[in-house]
């Protein structure tokens, strides 16, 4: 088979599965739906590995080709095309593999759900959209994938649409992402305006020519073109990758079924922003302002969102805030021009975070959909497999030497350390202290769930048992890469030429190269890691967690009592939601109310608020009156029309 056919088959296989499961769901039944989608995704997983082998291991040249020209308008081609290189291939492997695990896991998790077929259709569709996004060779397709994953995520978060909270959460995700997309769209529009093309290769090739260009967005203020474009594009990434302050939707999106939390939050959708910035590295490298912006936003997200994880009691929310924090790390890496490190962390994080999510899901199933950690504890002996795999995931997350998270996170931290950009010092402090926080909340969750006294009620305890094999197999399969992937990837990704031409780093920003100067093999790197502050911070975090939640369980309550205001701030999530509800929600309502009053009092009967509806109704009323149903009215209307046309055309002469 030709490589091109393989590229084409990879996104299409899940699409076909999604269509069959979605449209013919009733006909093929529940088993049919999961088989058809799993076969589709499995096929694209296998093929993704073929592609990975071809591009990364065999080092084939990047493929850049158009599949189909949709339309050409005024010289601008709207195309569907693939750009497959090392970056894309890595993402494809991650996306399809995690998606396959989630598909299998879903069989167990959604076992009793009436929307079974619909769910499989959605997640397969999501895989398709994500692959289209990743494989795009132009901005239009990128945007299509971007919006498509947003749409499916909206549908999935609100999957249980009978729940008000689910509807609220999906509305929130939708609206917040629209805010980000607005920036993204403006960024693409700016690219189109200045480059006259949407093709990546052409844009990147022409980028150096336009370095000095400035644009005047607000009269009088000249801004560098690339700063504007990159910041706008990154605003899109902030929405999708849940960076502060557009992160608010992600914790609420836990309303969706757990496989979705894993699929959307761990491996795929949230990393779209990180991937996009890496893909756009030739543009971001041209603007230090934009890089600093990314760095600062990432640092804020990494530090402050981690703190929130400390006070959550819902097991899935802890993982969600941890995801936010890790995304912040990745953004920091991008800002420090360590794109490779960020992509590396993205890859490792995809595996261990999916593992943690699915582990949390397994616990939730065992606990009969109880998500509050205060009612868990001591699950270790009931669920040994889940216990071990969760431990692996947690160790990977906190960056325990040897586990995958260690290499990728250390790479980012060290890269920031070497960065000379404005704001890099603060970012370094933020990510460094973040390590302690990460360890603390991860093991707080771990201890509260699996160790200590059993706080659940009698009835639940009696029914506790290990999850079925469709749940544990994905856990084990995800645990393996969580351990070993760091060993495989660390050297080529961080210090080698893994990404080749796919990622462009300007020499003056190349923090990883500087890091590489002191690199003497993986084992040395690891030994060095054990001496370095991050390891000790992590160890301290684990110890603190053990001390507070195992040894002196009375202490946390006392600490909370001492620092009540701080705790309140954290529980209130810094007031973001309140602020948004008050400012945006309340503001629009207030504005609406104001307009309603003014409109009602000053103008005729609510012309402003209900204006359009009224006008339409009014018109409709008039025309309905004309549409009497009487023949002579119709004939008369025709005659009048004739008369007026005659007057119009001949009247003058």
């Amino acid at each position: 088979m030709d490589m091109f056919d393989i590229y084409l088959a990879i996104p299409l296989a899940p699409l076909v599965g999604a269509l069959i499961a979605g449209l013919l769901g009733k006909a093929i039944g529940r088993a049919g739906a999961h088989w058809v989608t799993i076969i589709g995704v499995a096929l694209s997983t296998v093929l993704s590995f073929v592609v990975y082998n071809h591009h990364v291991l065999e080092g084939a040249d990047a493929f850049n080709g158009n599949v189909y020209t949709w339309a050409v308008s005024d010289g601008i081609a709207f195309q569907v095309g693939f750009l497959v290189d090392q970056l894309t291939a890595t993402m494809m492997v991650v996306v399809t593999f995690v998606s396959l695990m989630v598909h299998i896991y879903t069989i167990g998790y959604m076992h009793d759900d009436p929307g079974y077929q619909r769910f499989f259709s959605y997640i397969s569709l999501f895989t398709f959209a994500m692959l289209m996004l990743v494989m795009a060779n132009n901005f239009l397709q990128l945007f299509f994938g971007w919006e498509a994953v947003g749409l499916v995520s909206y549908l999935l978060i609100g999957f249980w649409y009978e729940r008000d909270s689910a509807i609220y959460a999906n509305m929130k995700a939708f609206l917040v992402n629209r805010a980000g997309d607005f920036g993204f769209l403006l960024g693409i529009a700016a690219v189109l305006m200045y480059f006259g093309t949407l093709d990546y290769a052409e844009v990147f090739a022409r980028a150096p020519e336009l370095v000095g260009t400035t644009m005047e967005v607000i009269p009088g203020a000249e801004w560098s073109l690339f700063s504007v474009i990159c910041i706008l594009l990154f605003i899109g990434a902030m929405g999708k990758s849940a960076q502060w302050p557009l992160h608010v939707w992600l914790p609420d999106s836990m309303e969706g079924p757990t496989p979705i939390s894993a699929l959307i939050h761990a491996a795929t959708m949230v990393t779209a922003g990180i991937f996009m910035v890496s893909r756009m590295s030739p543009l971001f490298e041209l603007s230090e302002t934009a890089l600093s912006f990314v760095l600062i936003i990432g640092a804020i997200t990494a530090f402050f969102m981690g703190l929130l994880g400390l006070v959550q009691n819902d097991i899935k929310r802890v993982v969600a805030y941890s995801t936010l924090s890790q995304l912040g790390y990745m953004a920091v890496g991008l800002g420090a021009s360590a794109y490779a490190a960020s992509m590396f962390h993205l890859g490792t994080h995809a595996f261990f975070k999916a593992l943690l999510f699915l582990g949390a899901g397994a616990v939730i199933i065992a606990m009969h959909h109880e998500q509050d950690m205060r009612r868990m504890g001591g699950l270790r002996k009931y669920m040994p497999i889940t216990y071990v795999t969760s431990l692996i995931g947690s160790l990977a997350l906190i960056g325990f030497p040897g586990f995958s998270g260690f290499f990728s996170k250390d790479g980012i931290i060290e890269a920031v350390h070497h960065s000379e950009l404005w704001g890099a010092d603060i970012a370094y402090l933020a990510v460094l202290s973040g390590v302690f926080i990460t360890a603390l909340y991860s093991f707080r969750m771990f201890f509260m769930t699996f160790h200590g006294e059993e706080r659940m009620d009698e009835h639940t305890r009696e029914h506790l048992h290990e999850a079925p094999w469709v749940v544990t197999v994905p856990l084990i399969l995800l645990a393996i890469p969580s351990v070993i992937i760091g060993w495989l990837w660390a050297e080529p990704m961080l210090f080698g030429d893994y990404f080749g031409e796919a990622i462009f780093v300007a020499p003056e920003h190349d923090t990883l190269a500087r890091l590489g100067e002191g690199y003497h093999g993986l084992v040395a790197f690891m030994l060095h890691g054990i001496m370095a502050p991050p390891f000790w911070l992590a160890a301290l975090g684990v110890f603190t967690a053990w001390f507070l939640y195992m040894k002196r369980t009375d202490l946390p309550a006392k600490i909370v009592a001492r620092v009540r205001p701080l705790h309140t701030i954290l529980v209130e999530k810094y007031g973001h939601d309140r602020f948004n509800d008050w400012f945006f929600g309340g503001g629009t309502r207030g504005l609406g109310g104001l307009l309603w009053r003014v409109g009602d009092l000053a103008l005729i009967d609510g012309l402003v608020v209900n204006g359009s509806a009224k006008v339409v109704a009014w018109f409709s009323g008039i025309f309905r009156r004309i549409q009497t149903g009487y023949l002579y009215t119709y004939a008369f209307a025709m005659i009048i029309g004739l008369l007026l046309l005659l007057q119009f055309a001949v009247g003058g002469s």
Partner: protein
Amino acid sequence: MSQLVIFFVFAAIMVFAGVMVITVRNAVHSALFLVLAFFSSAAIWLLMEAEFLAIVLVLVYVGAVMVLFLFVVMMLDVNTARLKEGFIRYLPVGLLVAVLIAFQLIMVVGGERFGLEDYPKPVPKAADYSNTEALGAVLYTEYLFAFEVAAVILLVAIVAAISLTMRRRNTVKTQKPEMQVAVRREDRIRIVSMASEPRNGREDGS
């Protein structure tokens, strides 16, 4: 000169008849006025040396169509008074529009644009010139296509009329000899094979 007088006389009659068609209350009178209008226009055609058309107009429209029309009107006994209820109410508006359109027509279709300098007076044809022959000469040659299409339209008219009016009435009982003749044995009797009944009944009785 005499032609002009004749033209104006017949034109006046035609306009008068046309107005009467839509104003008189009685449908039969209305139809009769239509006949008058046809006659007058036939006369004007004669004046224009279109003898064939004039004669056909009288034969077809007056002779056939209008007779049929009268026939229908008399048979249906239409209540014309009710139909004209709205007439007076809408008359002013209708009149205004009619006047406006007439004004526009006159503005354009006047001697100013259709005068003799634009349209030279046609030369009268010789006495032995046959209108009918001239029509016949082009009908099957130059206008063959249009002629055939017109024929198809007539066919469709027949089909449409029949399909809209013909109705097999199930309520009326009539003999259908062809069905009686064509009847077969299988249509009338049915041979049912069934298991033989035990003879208990008869034994009890006897």
